[in-house]
């Protein structure tokens, strides 16, 4: 078997490590070595976005990143977006509230992308949400309720921020 490398990541705030061939895709490392199965595989060709994770403050499609490239990175997956007390985070809650998911297969990628989008642009218009989410495919919802959920999340996050200030 090919040579394996020692990979270290900060995953959802925790130090994790494992052995993997350098060619291993980040998505496979997450799912198979680390048992983090939130991010899914819908294409392995960087079209669908089901594998979206947050890496060093950017949305990436983890099927298009070798684990060697991710060594030392800070990675956040949908599992890391729940509140510290285990309750659903704002975006997760809004997806549920506005029926922004059906089969749920695209959802982890969608929510992780939405999380980054709202950091990049905390007050997006509907058009900006539609454009900013266009790297993530959904076969079930027709996006209308996903867009609604993200706009509602923006409102709620902004209100929380204002209340805190």
């Amino acid at each position, binding site marked *: 078997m090919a040579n394996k490398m020692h990979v270290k990541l900060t995953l959802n705030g925790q130090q994790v490590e494992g052995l993997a061939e350098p060619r291993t895709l980040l998505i496979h490392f997450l799912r198979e070595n680390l048992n983090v*199965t939130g991010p899914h595989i819908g294409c392995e060709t960087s079209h669908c976005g089901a594998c979206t994770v947050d890496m060093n403050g950017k949305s990436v499609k983890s099927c298009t990143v070798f684990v060697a490239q991710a060594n030392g990175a800070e990675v956040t997956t949908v599992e890391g977006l729940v509140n510290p007390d285990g309750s659903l985070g704002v975006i997760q809650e809004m997806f549920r509230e506005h029926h922004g998911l059906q089969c749920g*297969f695209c959802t982890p990628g969608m929510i992780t992308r939405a999380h980054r989008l709202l950091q990049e642009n905390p007050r997006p218009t509907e058009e900006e949400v539609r454009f900013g989410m266009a790297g993530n495919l959904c076969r079930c919802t027709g996006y209308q*309720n996903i867009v609604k959920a993200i706009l509602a999340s923006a409102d709620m996050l902004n209100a929380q921020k204002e209340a805190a200030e």
Partner: protein
Amino acid sequence: MNDQVMSPEQRAANLKGMGCARKRVEDVRFTQGKGRYVDDIKLDGMLFGDFVRSPYAHARVVSVDTSEAMKVPGVVAVLTAQDLAPLGLHWMPTLAGDRQMVLADGKVLFQGQEVAFVVASDRYAAADAVEKVVVEYEELPVVVDPFKALEPDAPVLREDLEGKMTGAHGPRRHHNHIFTWEQGDKDATEAVLAGADVVAEEMVYYHRTHPSPLETCGCVAAMDKVTGKLTLYGTFQAPHAIRTVVSLISGLAEHNIRVISPDIGGGFGNKVGAYSGYVCSVVASIVTGKPVKWVEDRMENLMSTAFARDYWMHGKIAATKEGKITGLWCHTTADHGGFDACADPTKFPAGFMNICTGSYDIPTAYLAVDGVYTNKAPGGVAYRCSFRVTEAAYFIERMIEVLAIKLGMDAAELRRINFIRKDQFPYQSALGWEYDSGDYHTAWEKALNAVGYDALRKEQAQRLEDFKAGKTRKLIGIGLTHFTEIVGAGPVKNCDILGLGMFDSCEIRIHPTGSAIARLGTISQGQGHATTFAQILASEIGIPADNITVEEGDTDTAPYGLGTYGSRSTPVAGAATAMAGRKIRAKAQMIAAWLLEVHDDDVEFDVDRFVVKGAPERFKTMKEIAFAAYNQAIPGLEPGLEAVSYYDPPNMTYPFGAYICVMEIDVDTGVHEVRQFYALDDCGTRINPMVIEGQIHGGATEGYAIAMGQEIAYDDMGNHKSATLMDFFIPTSWETPTYQTDFTVTPSPHHPIGAKGVGESPNVGSVPCFSNAVHDAFRPFGLTQSHMPHDQWRIWKIANDLGLHG
């Protein structure tokens, strides 16, 4: 507030029963990445399977050399047809009464066909080994056009059928012919056509496409050599039927097989069929004694597991000069690919294509369908549709438009004067169906008013003037559709798959503290069954939906059922749920009467309790009754509170809808913009309006994709031209239109709760609606028919062919 003193309205609201936009219980898991899909399953010592696939569409397989592949570290086995033959598993029966190669047996019939199955310790080793399998092919002439396939000197595709002039559906008249299916009255229809004032004729092609759910197909087969039990996890839309099929083809006793459908990442028909990957995984697990996982990648999904449509529909429609339709004739050439693996009820080789008279009162009709073999992928499935209803709806809704052009009539008016009237239901169609209920005129008027139809037509006419005057390069198209679906297959007397009647089931157990579990024979793939079936039950038995667990997909625990596709869950399993609930209620009534010391007939059900008639202060809640069922010795009654129902529907249900689309089309670039999309659906009684609306958004988006760009295309060599998401159009949030939903309610008279099913209506209705909008924009310039998908280039080409580019 205590349930003893709440008002009936408050008590009803507490149940979150039918009609409530209840939030989905599934979502708490899914939104935090805690779903459990097949690829999330990890078992001790699990191996991975991967296929060697044919690069050719038609070729002889001269030899398969696996020796180098076996040397790849981690490889455990490489299976070929030779290995499967002694077990009789190198071929498998299809759902359509044909047979299909599991692994290439001497030849291949489509590009991407499975040739060998590599089993290795991880997916990378398996992929490496796939590259090392050496297959020698000898190319054969390819035929991808079903009309050419029927020419006398066409290449023989299925040598295994040589000389067999009778197939599963009657006589075959050519070596590439599968069946002819005829419905209606041919002579009478031809007589009507011959004597008609007006006949419009057109060839309407509904191109090949693919359901491509976001999660591809896959399974994990785990044979336990100690117990002799096989557990098969997989993306199965029909887990019970899969268990029976696995038992029949493998020879394993059915009780030793446990099939589990875990969470499924969308199905849309793709996950109905039985695929080589399942058979090979099972065999590999038996051979190696280890669990074996196989999950196809996207390219394999688009190339090999299932396809949809590919119907060439030649139509003639006859009418009086006032526009009253007098007859419909249709001859369809159906391209089934290399094997006939279409998933249809046994007696319906062309599915319910005979619903092609649509929403119209057409007294005389005839339909013939010829199934044909070509060098394309097999496995025609109903892509979010009930067995070819999409094709039928597209056909009739195009024919209506073509007839309107011929008559010089407004297409909305032509529909109106031909609709089946409300007082004609139940309506016997010329092609053999009994439509249960409908009120098409009301729906149609509501839709036309909602969009301001007359004003839209005026605006369109003005735009046309402006276009002709050189003031704009954009045209407006108004797409109209009124569709009638036929779903909820179906009555056991005429609907079966592999001899299994298409009933469905529900089993309910009420726990002593007044909560419950319900298990069904169906399986959710995103429809939210855990949410909505609990709502049906809540209303039926008066236990809050939040206290009812719904479980599906494990054949060891769930009652037998035929699964989820063809919008059958609500019409069939939903009915079973209501009926099982009524059995619970009947027993609860006896318990309540005993507790209240009155006669059974002296108590009546009131939301969540039984009350003594005329004495509303004397009652027993379902919670109290549940406890009593386990705690009291009631004379003449067994302890416990459980029920099961196997529901054989007396008829199909016939949801319908009126859709209108307004589209702007740039004549010079072929770019379109959907300005408005209005969807009125009538699915009978509405269980959860939020879920219904979500289904409509999703189905209409699939319809948008199909109409405007999505296709499975092959070149003349049989090369698959759209096997990645780069080439196969799936709309993003950016392209997808915004939908405006609306409804009327015409309950099904024969369904226990009047529900009809809705999941597929938006796909059925939106495709003709988008397509009609494109056609309508160019109607003034003489366009009658242009085949889908209407991508940018094809729309540009319409304009160019019509001479609109100057």
